[in-house]
């Protein structure tokens, strides 16, 4: 059954609706740069009892165009998203920034068009950032997930200020065994990514992320988590350039138990050498640390 061709949703309509039908909006950055976040999202959502599909007619949320003032482009792109996700009960996004664009900002684009605004309003109501969806809508808490690490949590700006995402990721992470959180100085201060901003004003962006890297170093954490890949790439890129050994993941990867591999800007080689230097060995030379 190829739901990609089922634009009118008849197949879904025929099935008894026991599970909420969730359409995953992958985001362009996750699609290109770190697909594992997308797969982690699917896993978590399925574990939470949802039926998850990824409609193929999606590319971008339109935020680059919107933030650049190209409202006509943005409107067309958002309309495409609305159409692609018509058949779903929920639209879930592993990014506060893209979710904020789709759920909140896009309203401005349809202000002069009451008819399309009505369609947008329906779409907006069913769109959620993933951690907010898991906690606020489903009331889900992952079980039996383990991550051994000391975590500093960064509140990405859009999710925090546009969608009130603050308590949900912390509550979700507090259910992970082996994971402890440390306060991060300036955790609600922008990391300097800002989408098109870091492209247009890279030196200012760097100045800001340098500050962030200093705070992360001071926190004593060995892991940095956040809910937005753009921010994560920015911070990981800086930490990596500075030779800091903090592992960087998207929160969802940890929650799905899929944070065993290389973090962002890490390679498998980095991991092996880190583990080698971190593992205590007994007299016989074998590791005594339990592998997660």
């Amino acid at each position: 059954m190829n739901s990609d061709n089922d634009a009118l949703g008849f197949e879904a309509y025929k099935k008894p609706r026991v599970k909420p039908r969730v359409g995953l909006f992958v985001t362009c950055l996750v699609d290109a740069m770190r697909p594992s976040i997308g797969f982690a999202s699917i896993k978590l959502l399925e574990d939470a009892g949802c039926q998850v599909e990824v409609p193929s007619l999606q590319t971008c949320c339109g935020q680059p165009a919107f933030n650049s003032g190209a409202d006509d482009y943005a409107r067309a792109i958002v309309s495409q998203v609305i159409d692609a996700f018509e058949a779903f009960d929920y639209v879930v996004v592993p990014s506060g920034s893209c979710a904020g664009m789709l759920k909140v900002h896009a309203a401005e684009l349809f202000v002069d068009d009451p008819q399309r605004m009505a369609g947008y309003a329906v779409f907006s109501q069913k769109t959620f950032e993933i951690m907010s969806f898991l906690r606020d809508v489903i009331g889900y808490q992952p079980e039996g997930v383990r991550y051994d690490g000391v975590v500093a949590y960064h509140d990405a700006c859009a999710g925090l200020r546009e969608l009130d995402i603050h308590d949900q990721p912390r509550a979700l992470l507090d259910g992970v065994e082996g994971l402890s959180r440390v306060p991060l100085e300036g955790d609600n201060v922008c990391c300097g990514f800002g989408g098109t901003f870091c492209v247009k004003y890279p030196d200012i962006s760097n100045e800001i992320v340098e500050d962030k890297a200093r705070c992360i170093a001071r926190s004593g954490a060995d892991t940095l988590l956040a809910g937005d890949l753009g921010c994560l790439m920015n911070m990981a890129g800086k930490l990596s350039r500075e030779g800091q050994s903090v592992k960087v993941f998207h929160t969802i990867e940890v929650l799905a138990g899929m944070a065993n591999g290389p973090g962002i800007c890490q390679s498998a080689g980095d991991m092996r050498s880190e583990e080698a230097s971190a593992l205590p060995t007994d007299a016989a030379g074998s590791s005594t640390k339990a592998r997660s």
Partner: protein
Amino acid sequence: MRQTSDKFKANVTAALQRPNLRVALNRTTTLLQTRRAGVIADFPEYEEVRDAGQRIKDHTLENLDHYLVEFEKNAIASGAKVHWASTPKEATDTILEICKAHDAKSVTRVKSMLGEEIGIGEALAANGIERVETDLAEHIIQLAGDPPSHIVMPAMHKTHEDVAELFRRKHAEPPESDDVGELVESARRELRPKYVSADIGISGANFIVADTGSVVTVTNEGNAELTTAPPRVHIVNVGIEKLVPTTEHCSVFIRLLARAALGTEITQYTTFHNGPKRLGDLDGPEEMHIVLVDNRRTEMLADFLRPMLRCIRCGACMNHCPVYGAIGGHAYGGVYPGPMGSVLTPAMTSLKQAGDLPNACTLNGRCKEVCPVNIPLPDLMRRLREKQWRENLTPRSFRFGLGVWAFAVRRPWLYRLGSRVGVGVMRLLAGRRGRLSILPGAGGWTRHRNLPAPEGATFMQQYKRVKRGARGNGEA
């Protein structure tokens, strides 16, 4: 002051090369943020007061013509003279005429950003009138020949070591050490005699009150009263948006202003000035002149920028802005820096000339969060970008790039093709390292940061494979 917002990028480069600036900014903004957070935590009614402040300003703006006329009537009844000026030049011409009429040789000034806006400093200098800045920060920048870098603390860009060195060179009786207390004492000594020898005192106004015709100054040092009471003439230059309806409405803003600006409940000196000397007064000016200035505010009233006119000039937005914290106020190149300056400078001068300002923003929203009158600053900046796009002011290369992007994302098949290629190339370049430290075309990023290596296949590619595999296994 000379505007250099068209040289924003060059200004930024210069600013980032000054480690002292970063030190100064850090010392100050951190303290201001902490103090503000503390005083607001102690004020449970804050959110309600802030909403009331927003509503009062909106009401006043919606009835601005009425309130201006009411203010004028009451100010005249208290004995003041009221002048109107559409442009900075009309304002300075008016002020110079008053100075000439009184044969003024020297003028003391209380800090006023509107004064900077109209260029009163240059106008006085051009007419051979001595100008003595009495606000400590303004005194510092006057000695240094710098423009202001912050609207509440104009000398924020100077460390105390910088100030000590300056005072040692310029004060008649220099300070004995670098200690900040000593520096303040030195400035007090230096400025004392100037208060009583000035012919005219010029101030701005934090608020003007319609139902009493009052001009309100909110200060910490005592220089406002020492500037406006001794001389023969008191001139006020004030923007028309500074109106509040009554003294009770003004009290709402008095509670908001010091908390937002400095993290205190109230400043030391809040004075309501109502006209010149009364019969029998032993001090006070013989004449009081109030110059009401438009300078494009009526234009902002007419369009999407109207909420900007609520601004009470507290500076909280810039104190919490990561961009301001990185580059300081001078880089913005205009009278007003930071988030509010990024809206006001294009609005008061030209969007073409100040085009970088609304774009040099991450849209993180902290400014909007701390604004005591709920000005949606990031939204206003985005709408200025929209205006730039519509008026073809966006740089051509960026416009082209975005056009290509928009074209591709609306054609998913094309987008997939492009992203597969791009991702594949990046993966190749990264090899096994998990990251890239160079990427052609991404110099801005890779100059300071690494780029993560993509996994090699996009999510959509992998997902399709997974689903095909699942179908092949008989799962649907």
